[in-house]
């Protein structure tokens, strides 16, 4: 019964102080909307870069005329590395054949070549979780030191850039989310604090009539949670509207956008996130009541 009464008081207060509540709700909406858009961007960058390492490979070039036993030894050593997922031997003849096939329309490039200039090589594919610029660089160094290996080629700059982008987006997104969440908590804190001070006399009467701290706090906590939830719901609606009415239309004219993912399930958490931030802000605002 007291909980029902607390709900009723909270609803009355939401109606009575509607302008301050609407303003707070809009501020929370703005914060959560920015977080959502940042998350949307981060999610797509992450998704776009997640599968790139699988396509990444390292090429280990070998001395010409290396005995088969040595070739097998090098292959065995490479396979024994925990970062390596597969090792494929590409003979110089196979490599030349593939080059010719690639340059089918530009055969003039190969004119004048009397013999195959390409060496034997290994195509080394790495495990997805091992593709970091440091581990690849370490493996390349180890391969270079092997007897019979002339050169190791891998997309060092590409890997490093990819790693930096992902890390940057992750750190930037986290910092932005923390700042905006703190802002949202502060908005809820300020709103509840103002409402609490405005009802100070009423609260004193409540106390003198024997109300417990829970009885006094409950309507404010509910109010904070309601404001947060409303902010979350508004941002959820806005994100969906933005996606369906702006983004989907863009995919028609800009094909690049067709591969963009919309993490709808994650966005459904927005009202819950708003509610928890509102609850937390209200709880901090009420602090320790004294009799």
């Amino acid at each position, binding site marked *: *019964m*007291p909980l029902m*009464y607390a709900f009723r008081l909270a609803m009355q207060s939401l109606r*009575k102080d509607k302008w301050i509540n609407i303003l707070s709700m809009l501020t929370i909406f703005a914060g959560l909307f920015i977080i959502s858009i940042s998350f949307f961007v981060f999610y797509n960058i992450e998704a776009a870069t997640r599968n790139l390492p699988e396509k990444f490979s390292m090429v280990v070039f070998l001395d010409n005329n290396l005995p088969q036993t040595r070739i097998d030894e090098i292959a065995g050593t490479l396979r024994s590395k925990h970062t390596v997922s597969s090792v494929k031997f590409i003979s110089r003849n196979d490599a030349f054949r593939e080059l010719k096939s690639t340059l089918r329309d530009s055969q003039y490039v190969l004119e004048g070549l009397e013999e195959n200039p390409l060496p034997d090589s290994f195509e080394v594919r790495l495990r997805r979780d091992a593709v970091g610029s440091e581990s690849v660089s370490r493996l390349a160094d180890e391969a270079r030191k092997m007897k019979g290996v002339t050169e190791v080629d891998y997309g060092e700059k590409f890997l490093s850039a990819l790693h930096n982008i992902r890390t940057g987006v992750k750190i930037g997104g986290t910092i932005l989310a923390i700042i905006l969440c703190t802002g949202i908590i502060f908005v809820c804190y300020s709103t509840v604090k103002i409402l609490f001070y405005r009802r100070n006399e*009423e609260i*004193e*009467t*409540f*106390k*003198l*009539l*024997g*109300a*417990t*701290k829970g*009885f006094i706090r409950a309507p404010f906590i509910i109010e904070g949670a309601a404001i947060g939830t409303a902010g979350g719901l508004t941002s959820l609606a806005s994100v969906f509207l933005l996606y369906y009415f702006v983004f989907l239309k863009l995919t028609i004219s800009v094909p690049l956008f067709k591969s963009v993912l919309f993490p709808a399930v994650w966005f459904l958490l927005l009202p819950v996130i708003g509610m928890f931030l509102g609850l937390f802000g209200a709880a901090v605002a009420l602090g320790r009541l*004294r*009799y």
Partner: protein
Amino acid sequence: MTEPVGPMISFQNVTKEYDAQTALRDISFSVEKGEMVFLTGPSGSGKTTLMKLIYLAEWPDAGQVTIAGWNTSELRESSIPYVRRNIGIVFQDFRLLDNRTVFENIALALRIRGAGDREIKAKVYDALKTVNLRHKADSYPKKLSGGEQQRVVIARAMAAEPTVLLADEPTGNLDPETADGVIRTFREIHAKGTTIMIATHNRELYRNSGKKVLRLDSGMLAGEEVC
């Protein structure tokens, strides 16, 4: 709250100071269960401070205040609301909530105690009947006269059937006829076994009442007599 052993209200050598100004000095008295006591004295004599010490809005700087066997200075903060629920208070400044109807103002005391809607309705209308204000249940306090507001406060204090009823200048704003009605109401409540303490400087209220009168003067207990 358990049944008190000994007096319902007990003050032992109680002193209360505000910014080095003594409001009450070395006060000792006791009020037995079911007793009706008047607290009198000129304005500024310490009547309201003494009342506040009983309903736990203030704590003594020295001495001991005991309510229904509980030493107020030793009470845990979390126990304070439960002790207050046994005390009905008729505040000098009414403390009615202007944004709630008369019904809701009285119901508040019961809602705080976790009463259900049916119980609240029955008890609020009972209390309103006692103070002859049943027809004003849906009015807002600001629409009522001073006397009517006073009676609403009394109804709120008695609706929750407290063990102790405190009234601070309950007839201060009333004409003699309404004041008589209010005092009659207190006598009826007292007849049901409630301990009552009424702070007043109106001598007419306790003259020939046959009740104990505690007289305060400049924060000291100047006399205790039966009038």
